[in-house]
């Protein structure tokens, strides 16, 4: 483990259930995630992306192998609040208004009231939803709810942001906009992002590296460096290198083969 590795995943396997009806979700997965990087995990449905993410966040325990998060066990890292988590669904508390949703993690931490409110205002400014502070989640669009969910995950300044298909349920336009905003947030906060997605262009557009997984049992097939210049702009998509990388990721996913062609 070299000194800029933040998360070390060492020969991790995960088996669900027992004996005959057990499922081997992950087999012998190793991956080093660097401090401050934006890493995407991509792969077909059921290849164990969520499982891997949940193990980093200590929502699940590995069956074998070891995970080290910022020098600690996942359990200790969770207690030290190293990770903020964003799920595919915004998972907002519908009985709390937007400001109080963002404030929730700080309440749990026990931050003083004045500090909580200041931090909440800053976070709402960050996602440009200050005007909606007093609204309830049911009054916001799906995209706005997701922004709130991201702001909430950042509330106690975690070192790591774990995102499980956060934009999976959004339309293409909103998805691109939130992707750009996420990059801004990432640049500003220097948080390390582990980002699960199904979308190849999204992974290439946002990431420093893309870990491509294959299913049954889940493995990391390859980790591809995305050596595109930053900041990433719409012009990035004009670069030949962008298309090369797209093709490369698609090739590892097995999407380029002849028989997959549609006439």
């Amino acid at each position, binding site marked *: 483990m070299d000194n800029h590795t933040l998360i070390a995943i060492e020969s991790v396997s995960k088996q669900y259930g027992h004996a005959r009806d057990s499922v081997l979700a992950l087999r012998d997965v190793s991956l080093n995630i660097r401090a401050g990087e934006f890493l995407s995990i991509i792969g077909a449905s059921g290849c164990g992306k969520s499982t891997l993410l949940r193990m980093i966040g200590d929502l699940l325990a590995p069956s074998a192998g070891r995970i080290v998060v910022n020098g600690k066990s996942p359990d200790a890292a969770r207690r030290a609040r190293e990770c903020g988590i964003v799920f595919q669904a915004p998972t907002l508390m519908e009985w709390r208004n937007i400001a109080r949703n963002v404030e929730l993690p700080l309440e749990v931490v026990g931050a003083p009231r004045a500090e909580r409110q200041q931090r909440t205002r800053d976070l709402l400014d960050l996602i440009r939803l200050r005007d909606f502070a007093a609204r*309830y989640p049911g009054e916001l669009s799906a995209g706005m709810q997701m922004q709130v969910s991201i702001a909430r995950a950042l509330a106690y300044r975690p070192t790591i942001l774990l995102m499980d298909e956060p934009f999976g349920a959004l339309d293409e336009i909103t998805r691109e906009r939130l992707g750009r905003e996420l990059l801004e947030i990432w640049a500003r906060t220097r948080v390390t992002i582990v980002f699960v997605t199904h979308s190849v262009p999204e992974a290439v557009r946002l990431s420093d590296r893309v870990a491509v997984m294959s299913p049954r049992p889940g493995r990391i097939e390859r980790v591809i460096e995305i050596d595109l210049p930053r900041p990433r702009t719409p012009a990035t998509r004009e670069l030949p290198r962008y298309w090369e990388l797209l093709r490369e990721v698609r090739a590892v996913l097995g999407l380029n083969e002849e028989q997959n062609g549609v006439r």
Partner: protein
Amino acid sequence: MRLPRWVRANIQYLLIPFVLGLFLLLWETLIVVNRYPAFILPTPAQVAESFVEYWQNGIIPRHVSITLFEIGLGFSIAFVFASSVGYLLAKSPLLEKIVSPYLIATQAIPIVAIAPLIIIWINTGSAQNALIAALITFFPMLVNTIVGVRGVRDEYRALLRSYAANRWQVFMKLEVPAALPIFLGGVRVGVTLSVIGVIVAELMWADRGLGFLINFAQGHLDTPLLFATVATLSIMAIVLYLTVVLIEKIILRWRRNVQ
């Protein structure tokens, strides 16, 4: 012909006195045509007279306060047990498996059948009536507590786990507010059942309370008083129910703009 806007907007409320008036008119007509004596069917005027008389001489208020006290006690007992036991059962599937056959069995026995037994065992007026009310109120509130707490989705639990929230925080910040809408549905049913429980108990055995007053009026063939008591009881039940609905509205006010 188009009705004015304010009439159309409030049509359901405006219809209440209208229907009531129509009903009283029919009632009066029935008596005038058939010449029923007062002990069979009193006129609305006779009932109103009795109602006012017994409110003014303090007899109805005294029995109302006794009945209300018993309802409050019975409901509170059921509330405390249903919410705490319900929470425990929701959290422990093993406990639920052990306990639920007995709980279901208590529901299979009609409460009126065990009421005499309770009356033999606990011979202190109000307490036994409250207990009978608590017994029929308990179950629906218990079920709603369990359903409410079980309905908290795993992702929300995972979220609080990621904040390293302790049990108390999970309870206060997630389980209670998430279970409240369903739990309060149980409370609404529970209040109505408490009223029924107390009245049934008082009718069977009591020397006080509105149930007793009904028995008393019947024994003396004082049908106007009987009607006046039933009217009092209905008003009381409606007020209780509306109070619960109001409390529910206040607690769940975050729902007002959501749909």
